[in-house]
């Protein structure tokens, strides 16, 4: 299993992501700088980590989504390479257009940093096969712009195609239909606001993020 973490100026969960990938797969991921124009060959998984790329200038993820490396990421996604975007990574995936919708300012305008209770709404994905349907999980969130928005038609399509993968059990940020994570129609691109890479070691408060990496890398 060859994986990569894309690193932008302002990424701050890139090393957490690398630790999670190495812990579960035994292999160190490639750390890829956003200014590079080519990805290492033979990648099975590309992760876009959390943080505040480019200081959230213009819109969260807007500048990062126009980086040099992004053309290669889009091309890899089209070839079926698995892509995981967490937090700022989710914002970047929507800005690229690999996932629908947008992440807006939290409805209560506060930065939210806490554990969030989630439902895994779809366990039949390559990202979630190790989770058990209808068993709530607890995963940290840390965001200011996590309020998922899409028009009603897009939301209906996401629901009817089972593309809603994670939902908040309670409304914490105003997200449409409590959506915390979605997958693309082809099933190889997942974006989520909660941080599974921060929940892989019991000493840090929980391990409910581990099954995601085990599903991907196991």
């Amino acid at each position: 299993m060859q994986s990569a973490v894309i690193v932008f100026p302002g990424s701050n969960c890139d090393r957490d992501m690398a630790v999670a990938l190495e812990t579960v797969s035994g292999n160190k991921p490639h750390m890829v700088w956003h200014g590079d124009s080519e990805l290492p060959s033979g990648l099975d998984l590309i992760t876009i980590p959390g943080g505040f790329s480019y200081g959230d200038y213009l819109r969260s993820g807007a500048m990062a989504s126009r980086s040099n490396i992004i053309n290669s990421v889009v091309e890899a996604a089209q070839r079926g390479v698995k892509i995981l975007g967490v937090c700022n990574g989710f914002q970047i995936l929507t800005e690229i257009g690999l996932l629908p919708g947008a992440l807006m300012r939290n409805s209560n305008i506060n930065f939210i940093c806490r554990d969030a209770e989630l439902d895994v709404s779809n366990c039949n994905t390559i990202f979630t096969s190790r989770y058990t349907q209808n068993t709530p999980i607890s995963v940290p969130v840390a965001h200011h712009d996590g309020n998922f928005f899409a028009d009603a038609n897009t939301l209906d399509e996401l629901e009817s195609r089972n593309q809603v993968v994670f939902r908040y059990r309670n409304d914490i940020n105003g997200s449409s239909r409590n959506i915390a994570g979605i997958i693309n129609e082809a099933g190889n691109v997942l974006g989520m606001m909660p941080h599974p890479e921060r929940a892989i070691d019991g000493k840090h408060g929980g391990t409910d993020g581990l099954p995601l990496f085990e599903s991907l890398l196991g």
Partner: protein
Amino acid sequence: MKVRIFVTLKDGVLDPQGKAIHHALESLDFSGVNDVRAGKLIELDVDASVSRADIEKMCDKLLANTVIENYEIEIADAAQGTMG
């Protein structure tokens, strides 16, 4: 050539910042404000060779996220010194 681009949230998209500003105005005892929507103003200085179509492309590709935002382009008339 000066160009001003106004980026605003689409109707129906919740604007938490606008709401907070509205509440702040009320707490300062300004009455009669029915609603507040906050947006962005982006000013460009461009060569005369840059067309409106070019600027629309800039908006669609980067300056606005058309999933949630609308934009209006105002191009200054250099001869008149006014915006139009």
